[in-house]
């Protein structure tokens, strides 16, 4: 293949390049700059609104949700990735599609679905009542919503890597006398290190940023179900712009860092 040399754009290329730069910088870069300026213009106001309106509490809750999502996603996703990549069975195709569903479903609909399921007359309402768990407008609802929207990341990463590396290393371990558990711990898991890292980053970003589902399911109750994103929403509605901008900047900064930690190519597979 002829090597590709990037050259300075000329003619038609210059026009297209200029348009692309304007588009991307104008759409993403300038607004980010504007937010920085807005927060920088009144830092004291931003901090005081963040503190007094319960912003720190909301941010803490979001971080707890993200950690939860990583743990649940890591365990079920590794399991699910292995099932999808390694096993052939009836219903696998359905499972395969179902795993990707959270990428396609609007967050509000996710919230609505759980409200219907656990709300008055819902299929699982009796179960939740029997267990003494309050799902709606309570922490379990936030957990459910977050687990749902983060579902695909670990499963997909794990399945992809397993399909790529194939089974020969695992087979080699078996012929050397390793039990299935030893194969998993000594061969499969180390192969998945990269996938689990990417899965973690994507899951954290998604969990921190989830809004629609936690709003509908949690109700954004201050001190109980308020998350970082619903805090921004509440602040906007209550005309506490400084608090909203401050939290937005925190979220933007955190997600920018997460994206930068991702290897190129792993960012938009989903």
């Amino acid at each position, binding site marked *: 293949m002829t090597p590709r040399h990037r050259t300075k754009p000329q003619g038609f*290329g210059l026009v297209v390049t200029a348009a692309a730069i304007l588009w991307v910088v104008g759409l993403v870069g300038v607004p*980010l700059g504007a937010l920085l300026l807005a927060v920088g213009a009144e830092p004291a106001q931003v901090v005081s609104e963040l503190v007094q309106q319960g912003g720190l509490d909301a941010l803490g809750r979001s971080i707890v949700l993200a950690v939860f999502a990583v743990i649940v996603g890591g365990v079920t996703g590794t399991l699910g990735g292995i099932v999808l990549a390694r096993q052939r069975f009836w219903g696998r195709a359905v499972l395969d599609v179902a795993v990707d569903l959270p990428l396609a479903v609007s967050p509000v609909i996710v919230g609505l679905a759980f409200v219907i399921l656990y709300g008055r007359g819902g299929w699982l309402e009796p179960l939740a009542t029997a267990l003494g768990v309050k799902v709606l407008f309570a922490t379990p609802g936030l957990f459910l919503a977050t687990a*749902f929207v983060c579902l695909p990341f670990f499963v997909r990463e794990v399945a992809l890597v397993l399909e790529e590396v194939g089974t020969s290393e695992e087979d080699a371990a078996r012929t050397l006398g390793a039990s299935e558990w030893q194969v998993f711990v000594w061969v499969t898991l180390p192969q998945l290190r990269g996938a689990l890292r990417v899965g973690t980053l994507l899951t954290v970003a998604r969990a921190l940023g989830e809004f629609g589902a936690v709003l509908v399911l949690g109700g954004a109750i201050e001190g109980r179900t308020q998350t970082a994103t619903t805090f921004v929403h509440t602040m906007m509605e209550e005309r506490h712009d400084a608090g909203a901008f401050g939290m937005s900047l925190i979220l933007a900064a955190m997600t920018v860092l997460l994206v930068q930690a991702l290897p190129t190519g792993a960012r938009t597979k989903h």
Partner: protein
Amino acid sequence: MRASFGVWICALVALPMLAVLARAADGGLSGAWEAITRPAALHALGLSFGLSLLVVGIDLIFGLATAWALVRWDFPGRRLVSALVDLPFAVPTLVAGILLVVMLGPQSTLGGALAGVGIDVIYAWPGMILALCFVTLPFVVRAVEPVLEELDPAEEEAARTLGAGEALIVRQVLLPPLLPALAVGAGQSFARAIGEFGAMAVLSGNVPRETLVGSVYVLGEVEAGDSVEAAAVSVVLLVVSIIAQLVVSRVNQPWGRE
């Protein structure tokens, strides 16, 4: 193992989705139809479709241009542009809405100036379109980029030595291998746009029959306690985005998985 994973997926994904379907059908088919065809609902759905299609169109043009610029040309700030393209993928969409409000809202310099000449951006269609472009920005670029990267420049050169003009090269040599990637990017963008909620909630103004989109309409119905209406409209959005998603996964794996 497969059984426990299957149960987990059923409980977490399938059951909730079925619950939405069941609730939508609570008032019978005619009830669901009536819920969807209520003028406010119809307008919200129509707006979501229209804006999403428009945004996919914009994405295709600018996404292709951006990918081409990134792959083909060397220009100052190339890495910055590349990094910026990835951001909307991770930045919460609600924050995306806030960003545009800060830049173009009525209190901002730019927004004030535009309002002065009679152009409302925020709480109006232009802002909504920009917000959807923001949240869907990476998809077409990142779908097309690897394909462009792999196109052998020799093919282009071969066409040129055979006397082909630029337009012919674009149509016959460059475009055909790009079509599947463009379809994937467009499908992902469309699915994302049709369900977009966070950015719309803060920046569309949410005026029924004007700037209220489908997802925010669903929220309104949930808050009003009408879960049947909300479910009916949701089913329409669900079906459309799932179709878009299926198209993406089909095109993505032309060689099949088995």
